[in-house]
């Protein structure tokens, strides 16, 4: 579905020195610096995948997604969608994509939501019957018809994002790009958005590419993640496999009746505070049940819980923190 080949993007940035002297120097002899926002990215995305792009701010996630959706022209490399280069055949290729950027809207602020949909219907030349069907289907997921006659300027952020999601699907694109879609949304709006993504992916086989900082989005939506840092791909693969590889451990939390906590040869005690001790162990080598059994022979245990290595650990490690 999507082929990204050796994609790179450079920016030229003016170097500004402080003070009046620096300003004058910049005027007479401007200094430029080449910024490699994205370097030599290559990957392939199959139809029907949901892929999450993660990485710290300024890592090149947005730049990548903007090159993939035809907004930015790559310095090198190319993006093929359904076999066609998006920067060469922009007008034809963008018919296959929908775009939602969290902080921006493509809706007309002054008019009712339905008016914006009407314009998109004309822009993408959608037949009335298809338009009605799409709207009915999306209404089933998001309840959009409750707000369709409301002026966009009077909408809450959650309602507006719902409007933007439907707007991006009016022409039934094969690929949907979402750049930080859940930013600023409350719990119920986030829930609605995730449900929407799952549903269109399940029913329509829409390929979804999203960038996010929200670990919930990734955990609930993405089977595959691509981690980018400093413009370079750090990881690309199945989420649970990456977790297993980068963070192959679990943490057992044990509460005793007093402050004396025994050690265990099969694991490492990472924390010991008051009556509570934490033991980190490798999933492959030993099970929590074995450790608990061994420990309970040495001391009476009051309570236990297990902390899974999560996606946040992955991100910490991958980001090099």
């Amino acid at each position, binding site marked *: 579905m999507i082929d990204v080949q050796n994609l790179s993007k450079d*920016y030229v940035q003016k170097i500004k020195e402080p003070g009046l002297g620096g300003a004058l120097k910049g005027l007479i002899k401007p200094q430029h610096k080449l910024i490699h926002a994205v370097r030599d990215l290559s990957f392939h995305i199959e139809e029907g995948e949901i892929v999450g792009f993660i990485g710290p*701010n*300024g890592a090149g996630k*947005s730049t990548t997604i*903007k090159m993939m*959706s*035809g*907004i*930015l*022209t790559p310095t090198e490399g190319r993006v093929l969608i359904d076999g066609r280069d998006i920067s060469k055949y*922009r*007008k*034809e290729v*963008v*018919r296959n*994509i929908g*775009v939602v*950027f*969290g*902080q*921006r809207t*493509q809706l*007309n602020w*002054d*008019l009712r939501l339905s*008016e914006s949909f*009407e*314009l998109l219907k*004309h*822009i*993408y*030349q959608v037949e009335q019957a298809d338009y009605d069907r799409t709207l009915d289907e999306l209404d089933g997921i998001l309840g959009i018809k409750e707000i369709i006659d409301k*002026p966009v300027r009077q909408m809450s952020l959650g309602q507006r994002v719902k409007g933007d999601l439907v707007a991006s699907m009016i022409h039934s694109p094969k690929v949907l790009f979402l*750049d*930080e879609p859940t930013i600023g949304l409350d719990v119920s709006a986030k829930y609605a958005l995730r449900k929407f993504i799952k549903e269109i992916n399940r029913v329509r086989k829409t390929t979804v590419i999203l960038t996010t900082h929200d670990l919930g989005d990734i955990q609930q939506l993405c089977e595959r993640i691509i981690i980018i840092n400093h413009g370079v791909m750090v990881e690309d693969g199945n989420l649970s496999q990456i977790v297993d590889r980068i963070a192959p451990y679990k943490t057992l939390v044990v509460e005793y009746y007093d402050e004396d906590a025994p050690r265990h040869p099969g694991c490492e005690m990472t924390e010991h505070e008051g009556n509570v001790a934490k033991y980190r162990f490798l999933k492959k080598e030993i099970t929590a049940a074995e450790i608990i059994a061994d420990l309970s022979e040495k001391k009476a245990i009051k309570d236990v819980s297990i902390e899974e290595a999560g996606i946040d650990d992955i991100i910490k490690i991958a980001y090099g923190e």
Partner: protein
Amino acid sequence: MEPAFKRALKELIHYLDVTACVMKMAVMTVIEYPSNIAGWLISNPLQFIMGFAIIKFVVESFGQISGWNYGQLAFLYGLSVISHALSMIFFVQGWFMGYYVIEGDFDRYLTRPLGVLYQFFFTNINIFGVTDLIPGILVFIYGCVKCGICVTPLFILQVLITLAGATLIRGGIYILLGSTSFHTRSAVDFGQYTQEIMDKTTMYPLSMYPESMQFILTYLIPVGWISFYPASVLLGIDSAYNAMLIPLITLAVGILVMLIAGAYFNMGLRKYESAGN
């Protein structure tokens, strides 16, 4: 029918269909804010009526400007204001292109299957420009009457061709100036300067300026073709050229300026950097 021709026709119909929809939305937006209409209806025409009053005062004091009498000046002034109004309706966004570049507002146009420039101008069509059109037409008709022009279908055709060309020249210049923002990455509002220069060079006879200026305003920044040359032949002041030829040249110059502007815009668009989150 040839497939290429068929495709072009289909595309034209697509654009016309979207244009109709966009126009409808623009009118609806205006109706949403009725109080704005009143303000524009008063302030905009007033600006041009005042401008014309100054010309009247100057002509009454000095007899004429550069050999043009009062009626002829009204004709020229009216012609200029009409094309100004048309350019305000269709191309005024060009003045604000820098803000779109900085704010990353071209993103949404780039992800839709239509020309970016087309969307930039037509999804922001400025119906309020009509308020400039009214004084322009009034002064132009006044000029026609004063000069005793016999309004024939040919004359109307010549005027329409001139206006089409003149609007394209103005629009092209807005695009050229606005597109510099892609390279400078700064938002400069060129509207004020452009308007000043255009007003001073299209509302009065170009012949009142020194010859070097006339040369520049004819060949380098071709604003002379917006109103001065067409008015000269339509009024018979300059009878050296065919009265049909000059409007056609204006149209050709308009198309040329637009093509250059479009190419320069597309060059800039390749350097477009969107906006960070």
